[in-house]
């Protein structure tokens, strides 16, 4: 590998790292703005124009708070907990292909930190490690509520990982590769996006992504009414900040994976036509780079939509009860995802990609029939 290629690769990694942190920072601002919008309020608007400096002010506040370690806590593990949470959150974005490739001279460098042939397994490994940050932190606090929160988080993450993995297996069967870039490349034309071939898998994946990120309606690990603050009850200052920040990074990374696995990554309709036109009018190198830049922007558009979707759901739906959460995970999502795998396999035997729509149609029919057969409720006239 040439030195320039190595340099460009290093720059790409640093830029991805920076973008991840920047987006996570401004997700906190966006979350408060979205919440304000949904609740008919204004939201943060004092620090800077439209409150844009609010995240920086919050970070400053976090840094200057007292950094407190409980006297009976296991000190090193107490520090290790938030570090692990942050580390595993940041690691996952390494295998996301953010764009096609940059060309200069004779080189062509993919817009991705590392391209490995087991990208999907790498994601899965990193996701399964994410639970350690929470567990170590919760146990080290030496507080019963923290421990309970940590154990809840761990059992929730383990339960939903299974359905997450099974819904991903259906995609792997469609693509025949474990590399994320291969999965994205396979979705080049619009109606081959996995959202169209795997509608049920997408819903399962999305639900599990919510659970893995500990977002509402699955934010039971930090359920205040039952557990004070959950696993981070004893945390203060920037250690708490790391835990909260890791959640936003996880949100960004899951949005990126949802867009890459199901929404064609950096592909958009008529991409080839646009790319060819650009290359014809501006020359092979510049045109290609501009086409890559457009794909990059499109990919981020998809990511931002999903981040917004995460927030939208958070401020719309209430929290599940714990047994409902477990029932949904084990008794609904896992059997459904196994069925999804079986039907996908049966469809692929006959070279038919859209076979999982059968499940969707059957489910919709069942809902309609059960809705029609349910006893009608009389509308209660409103007392004036």
């Amino acid at each position, binding site marked *: 590998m040439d030195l320039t290629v190595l340099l460009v690769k290093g720059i790409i990694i640093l830029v991805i790292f920076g973008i991840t942190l920047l987006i996570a920072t401004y997700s906190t601002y966006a979350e408060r703005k979205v919440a304000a919008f949904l609740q008919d309020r204004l939201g943060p608007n004092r620090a800077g124009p439209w409150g844009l400096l609010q995240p920086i002010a919050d970070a400053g506040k976090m840094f200057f708070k007292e950094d407190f370690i409980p006297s009976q806590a296991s000190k090193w*593990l107490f520090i290790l907990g938030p570090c692990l949470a942050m580390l595993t959150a940041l690691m996952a974005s390494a295998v996301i292909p953010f764009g096609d490739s940059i060309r200069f001279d004779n080189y062509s460098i993919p817009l991705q930190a590392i391209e490995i*042939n087991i990208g999907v*397994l790498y994601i899965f*490994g990193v996701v399964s490690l994410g639970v*350690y940050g929470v567990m170590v932190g919760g146990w080290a606090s030496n507080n019963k509520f923290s421990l309970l929160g*940590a154990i809840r988080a761990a059992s929730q993450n383990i339960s939903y990982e299974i359905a997450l993995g099974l819904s991903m297996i259906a995609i792997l069967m469609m693509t025949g590769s474990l590399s994320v870039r291969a999965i994205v490349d396979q979705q080049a034309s619009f109606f081959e996006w996995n959202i169209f071939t795997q509608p049920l898998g997408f819903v399962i994946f999305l639900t599990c992504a919510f659970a893995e990120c500990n977002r509402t309606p699955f934010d039971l690990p930090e359920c205040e009414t039952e557990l004070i603050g959950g696993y981070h009850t004893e945390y203060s200052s920037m250690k708490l900040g790391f835990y909260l920040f890791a959640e936003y990074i996880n949100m960004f990374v899951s949005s990126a994976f949802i867009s890459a696995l199901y929404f064609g990554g950096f592909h958009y309709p008529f991409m080839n036509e646009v790319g060819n036109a650009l290359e014809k009018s501006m020359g092979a190198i510049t045109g290609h780079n501009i086409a890559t830049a457009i794909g990059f922007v499109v990919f981020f558009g998809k990511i931002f939509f999903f981040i917004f979707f995460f927030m939208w759901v958070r401020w719309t739906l209430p929290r599940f009860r714990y047994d409902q959460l477990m029932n949904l995970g084990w008794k609904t999502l896992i059997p459904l995802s196994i069925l999804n795998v079986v039907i996908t396999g049966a469809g692929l035997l006959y070279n038919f990609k859209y076979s999982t729509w059968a499940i969707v149609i059957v489910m919709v029919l069942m809902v309609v029939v059960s809705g029609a057969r349910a006893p009608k409720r009389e509308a209660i006239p409103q007392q004036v």
Partner: protein
Amino acid sequence: MTEFLSFFKSLTPTGYLFLFLTVLTLFSAIGVVTARNPVYSVLALIATFFCLSGHYVLLNAQFLAAVNIIVYAGAIMVLFLFTIMFLNLRKEDEESKTNLTKMASVVVGGLLMIMLITIFRAKSAQVPTVNAGTFSAKTGLVENLGQLLYSDYILPFELASVLFLVAMVGAVMLGKREAGDRHF
């Protein structure tokens, strides 16, 4: 001493990485045994698994490395940690380790060590030298592994999956709540 130095000078970067990982592996493995607190033991074991995965990557067996992390570090050790946190073992439990159990564990551990050393020194277990003609760097990658598993080793592979199914059904049977059991 000079021999030692020249050995170090002859190493490639991969060699240094291997030595570093090995030292780390050994230290974390020793940590598993010597830690007083079972939670520290489990964390040290997780670190050991990570170092082993590093070794797999050095051997260009990336699939094995990823699966090792997912299955052992990601699933089994989480359950270990889970159980230990629930049990909340305290210092008082130290007294249950009598001299007899300590002696027995030393004997068993020593026997195991002697066995392993004899196996490693046996002629038939020596690692063959690399034949540059037939060497393929892609042996450990997932495509080749899948080809092997689904052609030459299909029977053991399927039998292993049946074994897992049996174990799963057994676990469900054990965990099932009987009519008279108390609710938690």
